[in-house]
């Protein structure tokens, strides 16, 4: 039976054209881009071409794009890079629903003496721009708010936040890992100084990402080493990975408009299928300011992992904000920040559609999920009435 993959927000299969673009750079044009002889120059040329491709996706200049090992490194370097650049300012504003790469970096900085404000979100996951305005002080060096949330798909009003931050002379970073390649992302439109991307979320390879750094932004490097990336990131460039990333962004640019429409339909179809067929279900996140590929629901009385496992047995891959799926025991900080109870957070399921999702896939989920839920509700101690 065909496996139905509905976890594109976790990672995407690398596009076959991307793999093909990468292949020559493993064993043939394998040079170190820092070398001046032929092999090195071939590799360097390939890296620079990829830089143009990535820059084009986000409307940046080539020299504003620094390659990293992924979204996490991009987030770490942006936040630490700004924090350490100005010894006079030690306050960072972020939100309660950021990715761990941002939150944990902030917590690290707190342990090193920085002050961090974690702004709350409303019950649909939105930041209130006034909160940013009201918490900025003269000590604030950075506002870091994600473009769209990886769990619930809520899209933040970055443009508005950027106006506030930059109006107050504060740098603004956005984690666009879930949006680049999925919805239009343009650094000038958004008005941000720093922006993180990850290749494996847009059909590129794992282990590659980029940080956009607006020209003129003062940043202390994160990865200290050789003078690669114009002295902004040491380490031998992951040439095949970078080439693949470039190719993936090029493909994304070509298909994005059509995919937004197609995925939005699939998403809406799945949401209505679930809400119509199962009672006691709520949609998490914003109803409209939401990524085209994201469905996140809480299914009353049923724990997330047990649903995932049952779905997996039916060859459907999804994800959950329930603690039991990870090594921590806490339910998703994102769902709790929306004001969900622990039960509701543990009862969540996330489906994220993508390039290879079909109508039939969605139909199948709408058919299987009610069965799974009924089965698990029958053994739920939270549902006395169903005895």
């Amino acid at each position, binding site marked *: 039976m065909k*496996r139905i993959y509905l976890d594109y927000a976790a990672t995407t299969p690398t596009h076959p054209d991307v793999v093909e673009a990468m292949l020559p750079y493993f064993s043939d044009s394998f040079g170190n881009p820092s070398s001046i002889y032929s092999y090195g120059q071939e590799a360097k040329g390939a890296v620079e071409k990829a830089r143009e491709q990535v820059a084009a996706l986000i409307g940046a200049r080539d020299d504003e794009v620094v390659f990293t090992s992924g979204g996490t490194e991009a987030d770490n370097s942006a936040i630490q890079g700004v924090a350490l650049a100005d010894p006079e300012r030690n306050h960072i504003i972020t939100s309660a629903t950021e990715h761990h790469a941002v939150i944990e970096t902030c917590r690290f900085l707190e342990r090193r003496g920085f002050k961090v404000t974690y702004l709350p979100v409303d019950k649909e996951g939105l930041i209130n721009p006034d909160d940013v305005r009201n918490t900025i002080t003269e000590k604030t060096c950075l506002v870091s708010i994600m473009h769209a949330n990886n769990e619930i798909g809520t899209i933040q009003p970055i443009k508005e936040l950027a106006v506030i931050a930059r109006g107050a002379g504060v740098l603004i970073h956005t984690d666009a890992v879930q949006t680049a390649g999925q919805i239009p992302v343009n650094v000038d439109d958004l008005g941000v100084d720093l922006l993180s991307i990850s290749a494996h979320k847009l059909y590129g390879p794992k282990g590659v990402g980029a940080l956009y750094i607006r020209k003129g932004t003062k940043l202390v490097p994160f990865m200290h080493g050789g003078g690669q990336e114009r002295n902004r990131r040491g380490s031998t460039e992951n040439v095949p990975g970078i080439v693949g990333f470039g190719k993936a962004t090029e493909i994304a640019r070509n298909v994005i408009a059509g995919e937004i429409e197609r995925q939005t339909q699939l998403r809406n179809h799945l949401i209505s299928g679930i809400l119509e067929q199962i009672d006691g279900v709520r949609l998490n996140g914003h109803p409209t300011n939401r990524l085209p590929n994201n469905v996140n629901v809480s299914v009353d009385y049923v724990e*997330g992992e*047990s649903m995932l*496992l049952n779905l997996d047995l039916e060859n459907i891959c999804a994800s959950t904000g329930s603690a*039991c799926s990870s090594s921590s*025991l806490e339910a998703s900080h994102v769902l709790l920040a929306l004001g969900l109870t622990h039960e509701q957070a543990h009862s969540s399921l996330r489906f994220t559609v993508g390039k290879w999702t079909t109508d039939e896939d969605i139909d199948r989920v709408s058919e299987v999920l009610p069965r799974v839920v009924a089965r698990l509700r029958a*053994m*739920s*101690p939270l549902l006395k009435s169903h005895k």
Partner: protein
Amino acid sequence: MPDIQSLYSEKVMDHFRNPRNVGEIENPDGTGHVGNPICGDIMELYIKVNGNIITDAKFKTFGCGAAIATSSMVTEMVIGKTIDEALEISNKTVAEALGGLPAAKMHCSVLAEDALRSAIDDYHSKQKKQSKTKAKAKKK
């Protein structure tokens, strides 16, 4: 082909797919309620006891695959045992009977042990009450 087995043993998956003894017992001799919503695992265990022998056990569980499988396993293990034998069941014996659990899931087996102890405690306290009631009845 799913190879979820690489996360859970075949035995765990068997108990997860076909959990034994799901449900509640009407007028149970002992009930255990354990877990809490913060951790995402809640378990209820019901036992029927006849002359010190656990003759029936049923469970209801809100929790992950391991929680459901350990609940199922623990009911299977206690049925037919004396109370004292049942008290010898530990989280380790449940996990072993399931062919092992991933490290991150061992807390679920602790939950099963706790549920069992709590049901037996409940049985004991009910017994005490009953004998007191009987004693009182006798005195009267």
